[in-house]
């Protein structure tokens, strides 16, 4: 079967496309608009990288995990595990800028780039028109500009693919949601050794906790309705007991009932069984420790998964760019429960 046809019929038409961008940026046949993956023209290859990298094509994820992580470290509910920390950026300007919660990802990226852990980074950000897009950052300033959660999932891996093909940077860090991270590890496993698109240039992977992504059109409409069309600088989903989503603009923060948001959840996200981004060197999410939202909202929690992840985290901690507070008892258990919950729901749907 043609690879373009396989992806179209087995992934896109079945509603399984995550919009991650792994199929894009390598050829003239694939592209995207408003979060939709589009095949412009058919390619006649049957063994395209598009198909090989797609996280929604049939994949033996257990084997993939064993290839990159210590099997003994795996916790069934949440994947490879070395440690859990409650963390925030030490620099208040990061936390109070556009960053999500504690600004840990931004702080780690900036530190990694300054200290040779990465020479560039690919992350979700915005294009010049303000639409969600992959960002290829080679400076700390560019990283800072892209900080903050998007909830619209941009095809970030298209940007990664282009950066890899250019072969100008050899330690490209990636900030990825679980679906994207799966694709990144598929790329790293070199399913097509002859055509690996310089996968060795992929550096540290910083995973992001993810409940779900939202449909672009619907979210645009909802935020416009909620804010009266003002530009949203920041948005967040509050802990479940608040049952709401917040949009922050220059004139303040407005919230909307989660019941208006949930219908916008992308279908494919309902089939996802990974909340904590199990394929990553370390994974970062909003803190949900039981200490209460007033405390937690300025903090992240970080799961260390690999030695490389641990190395970066410790160096950053030592350098004082991040700070930790005591991990409350039961925090790990809370993550396990939430994560197992997502796995259960995904199983029900698929």
């Amino acid at each position, binding site marked *: 079967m043609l690879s373009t046809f396989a992806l179209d019929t087995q992934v896109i038409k079945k509603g399984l496309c995550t919009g991650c961008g792994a199929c894009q940026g390598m*050829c*003239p046949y694939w*592209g995207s*608009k408003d979060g939709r993956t*589009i*095949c412009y*023209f058919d390619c006649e290859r049957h063994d395209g*990288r598009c198909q090989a990298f797609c996280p929604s094509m049939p994949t033996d994820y257990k084997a993939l995990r064993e290839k990159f992580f210590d099997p003994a470290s795996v916790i069934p509910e949440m994947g490879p595990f070395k440690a859990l920390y409650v963390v925030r950026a030490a620099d208040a300007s990061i936390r109070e800028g556009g960053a999500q919660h504690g600004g840990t990802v931004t702080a780690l990226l900036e530190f990694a780039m300054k200290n040779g852990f990465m020479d560039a980074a690919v992350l979700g950000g915005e294009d010049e028109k303000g639409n969600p897009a992959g960002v290829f950052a080679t400076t700390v300033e560019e990283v800072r500009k892209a900080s903050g959660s998007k909830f619209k999932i941009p095809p970030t891996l298209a940007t990664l693919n282009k950066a890899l*093909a250019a072969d100008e940077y050899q330690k490209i860090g990636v900030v990825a949601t679980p679906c994207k991270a799966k694709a990144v590890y598929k790329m790293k496993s070199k399913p097509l050794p002859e055509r690996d698109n310089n996968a060795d240039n992929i550096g540290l992977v910083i995973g992001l906790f993810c409940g779900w992504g939202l449909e672009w*059109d619907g979210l645009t409409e909802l935020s416009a309705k909620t804010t009266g069309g003002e530009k949203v600088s920041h948005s967040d989903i509050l802990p479940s007991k608040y049952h709401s989503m917040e949009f922050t603009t220059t004139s303040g923060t407005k919230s909307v009932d989660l019941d208006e948001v949930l219908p916008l959840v992308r279908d494919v996200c309902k089939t996802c069984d990974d909340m904590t981004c199990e394929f990553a060197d370390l994974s970062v999410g909003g803190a949900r420790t039981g200490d209460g939202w007033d405390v937690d909202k300025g903090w992240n929690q970080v799961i260390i998964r690999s030695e490389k992840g641990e190395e970066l985290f410790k160096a950053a901690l030592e350098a004082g760019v991040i700070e930790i507070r005591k991990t409350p008892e039961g925090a790990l258990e809370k993550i396990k429960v939430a994560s197992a919950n997502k796995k259960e729901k995904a199983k029900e749907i698929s």
Partner: protein
Amino acid sequence: MEWTLTANEPGKVCLMQGNEAIVRGALEAGINFASSYPGSPSSQVLGMLGNVAEERGFYAQWATNEISALQGCMGASFANARAICIMKQNGLLVSADALFCGVQGGVKGGLVLITSDDPDAHSSTNEFDSRNFAPAAEAIMLEPMTMQETKDMIPYAFELSERHHQLVIVRVTTRICHGRGNVVLGELPEKAHPIQAVDEWDRMNCVCYEHQATLNKLKAVQEEFENCPFNTYQGPEKAEKLIITSGTGKLYAKEAISRLGVAENVGLLALGTLWPLPEKTITSYMKEAKEVLVLEEVDPYLMTQVEAIAGRYGLNIKFSDRGTNVGELSPDEVLKAISALTGAAIPEKRVKQNEQGEKEPLIRRELTFCAGCPHRATFYLLKKALRSEKIPGISIGDIGCYFMAGGEAGFFGYQVCNAMGSGINVAQGLGQLTSYGLNQKVVTMCGDSTFFHTVMPGLLNASYHNSDMLMIVLDNSATAMTGFQPHPGTGITAMGKTVEPMSIEAICLAMGCSVTIADPFDIENTQQILLDLLQQKGLKVLIMKQPCATLKSKQGGPKKTVRVNPDKCLGDGCGCDKFCSRVWGCPGNSWDFENGKAVIDPVSCVGCGVCAKLCPAGAIEVEGGAEE
């Protein structure tokens, strides 16, 4: 050939194309006025007339459409001018209202309408048989069978037209227009036909009380046609087996009769007067016949008429035909039909064979845009834009070179194509439904010549009713499909005069449309413009400006050299898969089978360099040439 067209050497034998024979016939008739809209197979006629118009003292014009052309001729006829109007089959339909009314109004100076049919639709969207129009319009119709007849029939038609104060249609087909044959020249008149003042009480009105008078004219013409030299018969005096034909069928039948050796026992009645039919003449042959074979292409026009005649005269005849109403007649088909009629065996055929004794196959030529054609870029961008929509947008085509965009050449770039100027109207209808539940973008397109031809009223309608759609004007500064005839946007006339060109942009603005101008070769920007325009509600006009590649190469000048760097070329590898030659599909982008790499065909390539912008590996390099 033009030296022949105006050479006053009666008796001289010249090898002429049918279209040239029409021109020569018109000159020998001393025409005063000629008007046409181009369309294959008769596109060349007015171009040639325009070139000699000044020398021969008459007026020639490319009208914006066929109905303007025909009604212009009617105006000229009212002042006793001899006027000739040339159009293709579809043009006859465009001018139908004028024709049907014109027949009831009658004419003063001779008015000859040439309609060229294209059986098999070699250069048309459809095949159509204009013969049926003659009885429907109650008009006179002639059809020549050879180049000589074509030339001779034009002055005859003018005289006939003036004798009966009625316009005369001369129907020709592709084989006549594009075929060649010997023509003996007649005399060119010293002066053009005299123009006369229009009297206060002269009338050319279409009014119902003229209907009987119109029918009376036909009766008189029918009487005349019983002795018309363009109706011929060959064969035994009393033929039990009779062939009735017209047009191309005559020569095919003559050849078949000779090859089958049946000249003694089969009669061949070839009719040059298609309406009214010489009923008495036909009956005189049919009443001797037991079997009649009617040879004609496309509609069963003659068959229906001769069967009716047989019925009126109570003749018991077995009728047969070629067995289909589709496509052109072929010599083989005629041979088979006459063999079946006469029982004569078909002689063995001589087929050109190669050394291995196999039939040499003809290389299949794909229907595609020329190398460097701006339409390819437009449809590439359009396809991407339409596919970028949540539900892919709807695309409506129109008539011109870009008709080919419906196939591979234009990435299957439209879904509906009706008649010339139809795109705007079809799209307008769809565009009104976006407020009634149709959740798709609607796009249509037209060329610059088509814009002037029939799009303007439709655009006005769409604008007035603010249809939610995008109209793309593919402005390549040419009537390219038919051979670069001047149109109102070109600033030149059929007689070579420079005039003020009409601005499509200004016309659209005057019609209240929002207008954007883009260059299809500016791939990145124009793609964004297209995507953005699709997001806007209401009627948008996008003028894609880039001259026709053929027009540019006609103008000459240094062309850029385009090359593939084989070290960078990904060939059929993942990441490209022969994108340039397989998908982009420009004839300039070829494939080197030996090395498995892309290659530029330097003969076809016009140096536009668009493929270099699209090559995913940046392997196509452009050098030299004039600055844009």
